[in-house]
């Protein structure tokens, strides 16, 4: 393949990947984060005790997470068509990506919040904080480094998942790699795709790590 041709394919599919990852990441986090907070605070004797709802949501989250992504993509096609108006293309691919992101984020956020020292909740209660203030001023604030790591992991996973939505014509880098690199046997395209993905994932991970480190005041910094 001509280098200009390859470059233009790479940039256009990279853009599709970025679109899918960003939109699914933002919507998935917007919905998954509150669910994660709820899961972490609604057990028996916790801030918003609702053990039954907690169990039911937990079950739904587990069910979604244990469904292989490619099956999820196909299984929710009717829903995708309802939301996106079509079941083909980058826009349509965002729907299953988002659906898969929500429980993923929810569990990671739940874990991050459960890590927060219970003594801090106690201290805030003793100050007269409302449960909502405890969530915003204690739980989310203290879990911020872990939440940053969790969202970084989410984005990296989304980049991986987005490679699979070629099956529904979602486009993106993964799709390019499969169609040209594998089906038409153009190893240089496969190589280029893999290199771009590595750089992308590496950049996201480093940025996330750096941000988490900046938020993390739990340890004394040396040097």
């Amino acid at each position, binding site marked *: 393949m001509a280098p200009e041709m390859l470059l233009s394919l790479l940039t256009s599919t990279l853009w599709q990947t970025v679109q899918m990852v960003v939109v699914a990441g933002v919507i998935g986090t917007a919905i998954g984060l509150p669910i994660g907070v709820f899961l972490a605070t609604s057990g028996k004797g916790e801030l918003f005790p609702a053990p039954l709802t907690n169990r039911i949501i937990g079950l739904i989250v587990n069910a979604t997470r244990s469904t292989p992504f490619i099956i999820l993509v196909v299984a929710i096609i009717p829903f995708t068509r309802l939301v996106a108006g079509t079941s083909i293309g980058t826009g349509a691919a965002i729907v299953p990506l988002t659906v898969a992101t929500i429980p993923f984020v929810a569990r990671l956020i739940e874990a991050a919040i459960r890590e927060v*020292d219970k*003594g*801090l909740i*106690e*201290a*805030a*209660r*003793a*100050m*007269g*904080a*409302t449960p909502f*203030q405890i969530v915003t*001023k*204690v739980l989310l*604030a*203290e879990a*911020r480094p872990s939440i940053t790591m969790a969202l970084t992991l989410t984005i990296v996973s989304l980049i991986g998942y987005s490679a699979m939505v070629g099956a529904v014509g979602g486009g993106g880098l993964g799709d390019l790699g499969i169609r040209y690199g594998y089906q038409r046997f153009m190893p240089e395209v496969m190589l280029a795709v893999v290199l771009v993905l590595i750089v992308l994932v590496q950049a996201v991970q480093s940025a996330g790590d750096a941000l988490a480190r900046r*938020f993390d*005041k*739990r*340890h*004394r910094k040396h040097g």
Partner: protein
Amino acid sequence: MADIPTAPPPGGPLPADTAPPMVAFEQVSKVYAATGSQAAFTALDDINYSVPRGTITGIIGRSGAGKSTLIRLVNGLEKPTGGRVLVDGTDVAAQSESALRTLRRSVGMIFQHFNLLSSRTVFDNVAMPLEIAGQSPAEIKARVAPLLDLVGLGDKAGRYPAELSGGQKQRVGIARALATSPKLLLSDEATSALDPETTLQILDLLKTINHDLGLTVLLITHEMDVIKAVTSHVAVLDQGRVAESGRTFDVFMSPQHATTRVLLSSMPGSGLPDAIQRRLKPTPAAGDNVLVRLVFFGKTANQPLTARMASTLEADVNIIAGAIDEIGGEPCGTLVVAYPADPAVMERAAQFYQQTGLRAEVLGYGA
């Protein structure tokens, strides 16, 4: 002879014994409900106790005695299963959630592990209760700076807790607890994670706060040293019950309950050197000496009694060990002496103690 300088009861203008108590426990019990395999557990059983206003009052007990449970009832972190806890006359458990939050702003609390937010600077940690109470940034700023000065951390405002020593962290905890100008400060083992010297500094700070701000302090601890250093009143908690209570000095001087004696015996300086302790026998043999612990306090604290003792007893009196101390702000001394376990000498000694008001306790007999 001049009057003995007995320390005035620390605290505000009201005499501690007549003013209505700051905290009153009335027939309080707490039973933790059974869960799964765990049987129900009675952590507190019929507690009746009043914390005098303006005092530093201590609650001491062994691990698991129910101290934390008791103190958590005061600010409603835990609800009693029986009886009432009154804070300044208000029944804590009867409050609505929002009234309880308001009440909590008038009750500060400090913790063994400080419980500071790692993500907030020293300044922002102290500001937190004010933020929660909805104060403006200007109000917060005006309040936090003097508080940091009060606890000696004026230069650490921008630091994070991870950059502070344990003692400094507890100072932040104290400043935070004082932010909303409470009338009562609760302390749950606030010095247990600190070394002895830092402990004394923190206790001094609590004394200063109690004295200067007229704040009532209720502290729980398993360390007699802490009780001795700062409290004027104490309650001994044993298996969920108040074993005994009263002025710290009185409880120390004449402990009534076995648990109190055990707690007292764990204090450094209260025991004999091991070498002597091991040779002590419960009954005398011919020619043995008797070892007696003499306690000086109040009137007897500064009379030349030991000098008179030898002549009164008509026997040699050996001084084995001695210490001068202050309990609940009152001076006292202990002296361990040995003299012949001869019936006549011991009879004269008994009379001597009775006449002078010296408190004497036979520790044992030995050669």
